[in-house]
């Protein structure tokens, strides 16, 4: 039923769906470019991101495409290398929160009862708490490091996956095909694994890309506030904060480029997520 619905959705070229597909494609191109930058940073970047590459604070030129920072390092090279930490942190954090949030949501929604109410209450409280502040609290206790940033960000996004999975499970478990499976003698574990979980996959993928977009902004925020890397490691959020003291003197290139990359990458994932939700969640958009 779901699959057939989906197929008609994909193969029937009406305008909104074409728009959804275009959004996914545009997002994927952006993400692919950033991934390419991260993987081949050693080859693409013209200079070592941590070494002197020209006169300090020189504006963009043929030698330094995006200018140099206050220590004479090449901003372009730092922007390329800066993609590495953000991608690593955000991907691993999202995978961790997904693999915690989805099973808990599935079990909680499937069995219901007191346990479900207790877990839901905890998750809802966490969800209500401002995510960046939660991440700051965790990062401050654990101390600034890349691994701790992954921990902090993954904790923050567990409730997102939990709520979505739980909600879907609640509506799926009363559907006819689940009842049929139960009548045929399938156990709880089998029903969850074989009948409910496959129907969650598309939603999980949509939520994954949307929450990655959000997680990128959280990572950049933490990094901007100094909770992820220390000098001289290049990271967009961190580089943006290093450029901040030079803003009043008009050295715009130290700020514009690393910050714009944060937006572009977040935009890439947001486009994928929005486009997918348009393609796979009929009725949400008209």
């Amino acid at each position, binding site marked *: 039923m779901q699959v057939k619905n989906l197929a008609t959705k994909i193969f029937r070229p009406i*305008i909104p769906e074409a*728009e959804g597909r275009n959004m996914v494609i545009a997002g994927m191109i952006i993400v692919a470019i950033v991934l390419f930058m991260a993987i081949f940073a050693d080859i693409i970047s013209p200079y070592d991101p941590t070494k002197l590459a020209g006169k300090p604070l020189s504006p963009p030129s043929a030698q330094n495409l995006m200018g140099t920072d206050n220590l004479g390092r090449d901003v372009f090279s730092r922007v390329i290398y800066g993609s590495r930490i953000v991608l690593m942190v955000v991907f691993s954090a999202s995978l961790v929160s997904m693999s915690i949030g989805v099973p808990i949501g599935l079990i909680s929604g499937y069995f219901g009862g007191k346990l479900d109410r207790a877990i839901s*209450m*905890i998750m*809802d*409280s*966490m969800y*209500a*708490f*401002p*995510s*960046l*502040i*939660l991440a*700051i*609290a*965790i990062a*401050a*206790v*654990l*101390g600034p490091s890349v691994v701790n940033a992954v921990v902090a960000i993954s904790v923050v996004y567990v409730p997102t996956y939990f709520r979505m999975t739980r909600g879907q499970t609640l509506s799926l478990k009363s559907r006819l095909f689940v009842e049929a499976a139960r009548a045929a003698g399938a156990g709880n574990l089998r029903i969850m694994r074989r009948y409910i979980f496959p129907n969650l996959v598309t939603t999980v993928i949509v939520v994954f890309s949307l929450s990655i*977009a959000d997680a990128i*902004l959280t990572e*950049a*925020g933490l990094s*901007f*506030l100094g909770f992820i890397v220390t000098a001289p490691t290049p990271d967009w*959020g961190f580089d*943006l*904060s290093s*450029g*901040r003291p030079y*803003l*009043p003197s*008009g050295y*715009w290139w130290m*700020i*514009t480029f*690393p*910050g*714009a990359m*944060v*937006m572009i990458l*977040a*935009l890439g994932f*947001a*486009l994928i997520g*929005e486009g997918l939700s348009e393609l796979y969640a009929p009725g*949400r*958009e*008209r």
Partner: protein
Amino acid sequence: MASLKAYIATRALLVIPTVIILLTLVFFILRILPGDPIASMVGQKVPPEVLEKLREEAGLNKPLIVQYVDYIFNIIHGDFGRSMIWGKRPVLSEIMDRFPATLELTIFGFIISVILGVITGSVAAFRRGSKLDASMRVYSIIAYSLFIPWFGMVLQMIFGVYFDILPIGGRISPGMEPERITSLYVLDSIITLNFKALSASLIHLFLPSLTLGIVLSGAYTRLVRNNLIDVLSQDYITAYRSRGVKNMKIVRHAMKNAFIPVITLMGLQFAILLAGAVLTETTFSWPGMGTFLLERIQYRDYNSVQGAIVFYALFVALISLVVDVIYALIDPRIRY
């Protein structure tokens, strides 16, 4: 009306478990997570005796369960402990010095985001399927993806440095502060009819609240658009149309119904607004709660850090209660 009162009372009682869960969460993060908060805040270079003394000062050397009971008990009594630096003032009064700045910023940011969201969303809904609709959608996704510090700094570079017409930081020009009544500078200067202070504080508020407002408006654009389209396609609107009711009147009816879900979003957005305010405050050197929290993390003032986070938790719980009550007042279906 009796049922409304009952609803509000039930909802108010339900805040208690939420608050306790949030407080426990904060306790868990600050005291049970692996890693010694004091050590990781102070760094490795401090002799063990000093660490021990700091731990004692923060009450971290007692058994966990005693710490937990003390912690909850003190918060119920409004005792957030004393700051561990400088004058060792009570944390709560330090927070009260900083909170109005955040409140002022978030209120203005909130107003701007709602206004922008309603305008863009309605334009998209009434011109559904047009180029304008598509560009509003692009606007909402881009607004959502903006990185607050970067966007704020871009505005600073344009209006503060290049055109040099707006200040790039601070809450008001030094010495211009209005008499303190509510500590919300805009409100205070209106009450005291101090127009110099009013214009100075509005000028300082403009860029930070615009930054916050634009970034958060994207979510409203989508919601307003989708709700309006929903409502506009309903039978009673068609009935109005067929009877020749004027467009403006239809819009008024449609808007009212389209707004109910928007209010729920406002509640959720408030948490995002507070998180966004941390970054906005840092970007614009705004002396609010966010900069307070970060500054105290840097000074390793454990009690203040805990106090600030607890305060955020309480504030979020309060806002969700207020939103639910507003919701019940507007939508009669919600009462039970």
